[in-house]
């Protein structure tokens, strides 16, 4: 097995700063029903920029909340994400995954390429946010490091309950217990939800994350 690189090796703070205010070398509007732009930032970073919807909840609040939670857990499942303004347009920008060995998990046996505790990490994340729309359209499997890469944490993911996350379902099938490293990460979630109170408009989301974190710490596995 190849050891997975940690964020520190990629100059985490530097990447965030680049996403927030690095000079844009190229800007390409993507064909889409949404306002999504591909940015090439000075230094070679490639990122999506998703503009906030003026008439609805801000995409960036949800994307940033998800990224912050991933940082608190120290799971490193999500791309670097930051708030950004481009020509007066506010939104979120998140790094494009460009690894060679990313698998679109269309096949029902995608989880055979993921290590148990890496599957558990992604399942914990989805369980905590009560991900209501996790499927092959918003995660990849990194077959080199046997990990999962998550993306697409907008208001639909947080607020709608279309289906149980495909990742949570797989973790339940494997009946995985959570390693001490994972439990240590979850320990940080309850105080984080308290720090976030008042900073995020959907208090019920934070309350739900706190309650589910407490459940995980008690049960030490993803509950059925």
């Amino acid at each position, binding site marked *: 097995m190849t050891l997975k690189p940690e964020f520190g090796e990629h100059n985490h703070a530097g990447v965030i700063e680049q996403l927030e205010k690095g000079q844009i070398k190229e800007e390409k509007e*993507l*064909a*889409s029903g*949404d306002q999504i732009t591909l940015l*090439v930032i000075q230094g070679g970073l*490639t990122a999506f920029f998703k503009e906030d919807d003026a008439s609805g909840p801000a995409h960036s609040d949800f994307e940033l909340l998800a990224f912050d939670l991933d940082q608190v857990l120290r799971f490193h499942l999500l791309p670097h994400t930051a708030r950004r303004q481009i020509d007066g347009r506010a939104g979120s920008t998140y790094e494009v995954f460009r690894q060679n060995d990313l698998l679109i998990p269309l096949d029902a046996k995608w989880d055979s390429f993921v290590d148990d505790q890496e599957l558990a990490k992604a399942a914990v994340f989805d369980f905590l946010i009560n991900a209501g729309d996790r499927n092959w359209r918003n995660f990849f499997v990194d077959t080199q490091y046997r990990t999962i890469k998550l*993306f697409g944490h907008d208001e639909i993911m947080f607020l709608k309950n279309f289906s149980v996350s495909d990742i949570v379902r797989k973790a339940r099938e494997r009946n995985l217990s959570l390693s001490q490293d994972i439990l240590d990460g979850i320990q940080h979630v309850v105080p984080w939800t308290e720090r976030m109170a008042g900073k995020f408009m959907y208090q019920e989301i934070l309350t739900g994350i706190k309650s589910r974190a407490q459940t995980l710490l008690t049960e030490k596995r993803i509950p059925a």
Partner: protein
Amino acid sequence: MTYCTDLFQLDAKSSEQKKLATFYLDQEDSINVHVDGDENNEVVQNIMREGVFDYKYARPGKVYPEDGMTFLENLRYAFRAGYFLASDVYSKTS
């Protein structure tokens, strides 16, 4: 009149979007969506076989090609995270 939605995939290396397929209805009231493009592409096959959630009207269950316009309208919500993106429904005269 034909109603269409285009599905694109991003090549993260080249930063170019590639059109995978156009899903279309021959008329607004017809009941089956067809594909113009690579029907053997596994992404396209998955969508046609498995359907997508009803994001637009937030109704339980999935919508399928035989649901016609409702299926077409939902593709842009199903594919919204960047690597795959779908256009709004547009019309063209045959």
